[in-house]
């Protein structure tokens, strides 16, 4: 039970959820993630009075600097990256007084002793109540050493029965199943699973959370949310940008690891899961895991029947010519004096998988999940494609081309929900036109959705792991997609196979229509 639950003055609907006292330690505090997302998110929470009076943030990196230099650095980066900058200087000043810094090597035990002493002082001076959040915002190879050192320094478990210690781990949670198991084993040797918060910022997005509300707070959708009414589901995360300066990262990871294994599998599980027995974090995560367990585990031989990969060649984006992925690598190598990347890389910049869920609700309904770079536009959505009407009454008219209904949940941009259906056009003839019933968050609520990191950091401080990935789900995701990763790494690809600025390779178009000519990819 959290302290918030025990405070009789706290429970009510007008008061926003407010974090209990705690110190948050950010490893890799001089990195981009902290500058662009974490500190701005914490500052935004502070501005909204959602942090406790007993709050402190400690930056931990190798760079030598004192508390004031760290505060100065955060002042500059927050001015640049926070929406609205620092706003009222007096408010920033009071927030910045809660920022502290420890310089040290992540492998050096002495640095952790220094950190421990600082945190103990902060308990006394700032009222952080021995509660800790450790945030690993470092390269993944440092996760295990940091976790080990935290354990060795005696910081991995609470100092008393009223306090708590949590650790947030950024993706990637491994590179494949063996590395995920290894990482989870190393973390699990020091922290209990209920202390571990694997962050997937996609789950912090308002529309993703709304999938739960949409499905389980409305009586009209759940009865048709099954194989009897749904033909197939398309989950898309498209980006218009190319790999750019991140060719190195992308060359190693590819679209399947970068987007599908984590973000889109989480979205898939929310769409496909059964109703949870309660809104308790584990009740929801149990249902998500159950649907993952029900996914047909295809073998290495079956990969071509379940997945398609692609890589963009030269083309046009936003009206301008753009190079292909391999040309980007060549350009990067030419500029780089350091590591050179494979100029004939087979890294997929587009990946698509078909998941079949073997349970009563979804038997026979394919879930097509795709993600790609250099697509015509940046868009993420879930499209539920309903079955055609059983009997076409309007065959003798021009209306026989009417499309089946679809329900589209847009994750970004223009977060909202659209239901497409046919309506008669005014006039003497029976002409039917598709029309949209459109709900947009921006229009209906007129207030900004909190940044994903704001929501997730607050959830972690409040001890609510609902929107964080659990160990078993991460491992199951790798297990399901493992054969695809293996086959794709072993077999040479015929790349590039799609033009920058297009909706992906023709193989993907043929794939979705195979055996069901009425199916085709949406072009959102």
């Amino acid at each position, binding site marked *: 039970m959290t302290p918030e639950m025990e*405070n009789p003055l706290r429970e009510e609907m*007008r008061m926003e959820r407010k974090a209990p006292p705690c110190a948050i330690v950010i490893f890799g505090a001089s990195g981009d993630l902290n500058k662009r997302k974490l500190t701005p998110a914490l500052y935004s929470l502070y501005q909204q009075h959602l942090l406790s009076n007993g709050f402190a943030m400690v930056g931990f990196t190798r760079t030598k600097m004192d508390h004031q230099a760290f505060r100065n650095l955060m002042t500059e980066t927050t001015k640049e990256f926070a929406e609205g900058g620092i706003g*009222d200087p007096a408010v920033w000043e009071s927030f910045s007084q809660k920022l502290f810094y420890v310089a040290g090597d992540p492998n050096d035990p002495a640095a952790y002793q220094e950190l421990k002493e600082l945190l103990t002082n902060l308990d006394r001076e700032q009222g952080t109540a021995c509660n800790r959040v450790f945030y690993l915002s470092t390269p993944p190879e440092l996760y295990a050493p940091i976790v080990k050192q935290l354990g060795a320094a005696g910081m991995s478990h609470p100092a008393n029965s009223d*306090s708590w210690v949590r650790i947030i781990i950024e993706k990637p949670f491994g590179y494949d199943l063996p590395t995920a198991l290894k990482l989870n084993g190393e973390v699990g040797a020091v922290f209990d699973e209920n202390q571990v918060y694997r962050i997937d910022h996609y789950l912090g997005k308002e529309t993703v959370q709304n999938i739960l509300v949409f499905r389980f707070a409305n009586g009209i959708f759940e009865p048709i949310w099954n194989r009897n009414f749904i033909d197939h589901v398309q989950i898309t995360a498209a980006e218009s940008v190319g790999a750019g300066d991140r060719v190195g990262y992308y060359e190693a990871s590819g679209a399947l690891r970068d987007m599908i294994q984590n973000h889109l599998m989480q979205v898939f599980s929310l769409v496909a899961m059964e109703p949870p027995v309660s809104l308790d974090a584990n009740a929801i995560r149990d249902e998500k895991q159950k649907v993952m367990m029900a996914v047909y585990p295809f073998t290495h031989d079956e990969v071509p029947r379940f997945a398609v990969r692609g890589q963009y060649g030269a083309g046009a984006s936003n009206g301008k010519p753009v190079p292909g992925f391999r040309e980007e690598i060549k350009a990067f190598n030419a500029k780089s004096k350091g590591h050179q990347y494979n100029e004939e890389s087979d890294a997929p910049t587009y990946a698509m998988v078909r998941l079949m869920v073997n349970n009563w609700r979804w038997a026979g309904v394919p879930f097509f999940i795709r993600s790609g770079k250099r697509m015509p536009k940046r868009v993420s959505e879930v499209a539920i494609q309903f079955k055609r009407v059983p009997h076409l009454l309007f065959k003798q008219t021009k209306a026989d081309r009417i499309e089946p209904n679809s329900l589209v949940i847009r994750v970004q941009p223009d977060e909202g929900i659209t239901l497409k259906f046919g309506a008669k056009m005014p006039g003497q003839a029976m002409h039917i036109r598709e029309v949209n019933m459109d709900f947009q968050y921006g*229009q209906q609520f007129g207030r900004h959705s909190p940044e994903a990191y704001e929501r997730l950091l607050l959830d972690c401080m409040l001890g609510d792991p609902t929107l964080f990935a659990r160990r078993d789900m991460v491992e199951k995701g790798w297990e399901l997609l493992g054969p695809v990763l293996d086959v794709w790494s072993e077999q040479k690809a015929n790349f590039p196979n799609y033009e920058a600025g297009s909706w992906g390779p023709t193989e993907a178009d043929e794939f979705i229509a195979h055996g069901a000519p009425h199916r085709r990819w949406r072009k959102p």
Partner: protein
Amino acid sequence: MTTSNMTNTETGQMKPFDLRTIEKDIRNLWEQKEEASEEKKSTSTRACVSNLLIYEDQEDMASLANTILDVTRHHPCRIIVMSSKANALEDKLEAGVSPVCSFTIAKGKEICSEQIIVKAEGDAVKRLSSSVMPLFVSDLPVNLWWRGVLVDAQPFSGLLGCADRVILDSSYSNRPTAFLSILAALSRERFKEAAFSDINWSRLTQLRSHVSGLFDVPDLLAYLKDLSKVSIEFPASASDEDLPAPQAMLLVGWFMSRLNWGLTEDILRSRTGATILKFLRGEQEITVDMTPSNKLENQDLRLTLTMTDHTGWQEARIVVTRNYAHNAIETKLETPTICWLKNVARYEMPTESELILSELEILGHDVVYENALECAAQIIEKM
């Protein structure tokens, strides 16, 4: 916020009240809007999430217009503004339709709602509630914001039956604290039909949230059970004849309901105008005093919580001051274990539109408020 203050309303021409004319005017309004959008190659979207019925008797339409713009920017809804002059010689009922639009900067889109103004004079005031009812957008909640002095007559009594939420402001009353009892009775009697809100309660939200947040610190939470004295100082100008200020009463009602205090018969009035009450929680006695102060102004409020152990030894004292002039909530703290003694948090006095918006966000009953109001009414009854 993604919206700008680039908003506009156009005052619709007032015409004799006729439902068909109003509906036709609304249709024309959107057709004109669509044509204008096509010419400007921009997008106007009509949005509506509820009906907001506003009764205005302050003849303060200019400030109300600004509030409406702010409200619809965040909560697009059909606005129906009613005003009345019961003492006019001539019977008159007329209406005008106009759009209320705001731009979303990030998207460059214009979000529009519609506003219908209905004015009644003379005997037509009695017909006001039945006239506006057909104007509601069906299947959407109806919020009634009564922006004026409450009278137990038409149109209020007629409108009560069709509202899902009734928003009042006890500060509008001539006897604001005494009015809390009327509100509590209304809330009780009409519980199944409508939820009641008092904007004066919303004005306390930041302060209550701050006080509540103090007890999120486990060290302080432990002291809450030893709370033995609560002192509330409020501006003398906010006193309600022989009663304390309504915000002070609601605050005591909140403590009483949240901390399960039972009210005793001991009620004292000091020469300074302070009201002293005694409560019991189990065996423990809690003293509450509410004192008018000439040093406090506007929305200033000072709350002192004193915790003592079973021997009467003072363990902790927390003084929270809502300082209107300094836009600050100051907290002073004295405990044996907590080192920080003074904390200043920014206090932003909410605007009228922010207060209304916070009410519109609530669907159904605000049980915490209703309990606090009920407790405040119990105390007032004994005074």
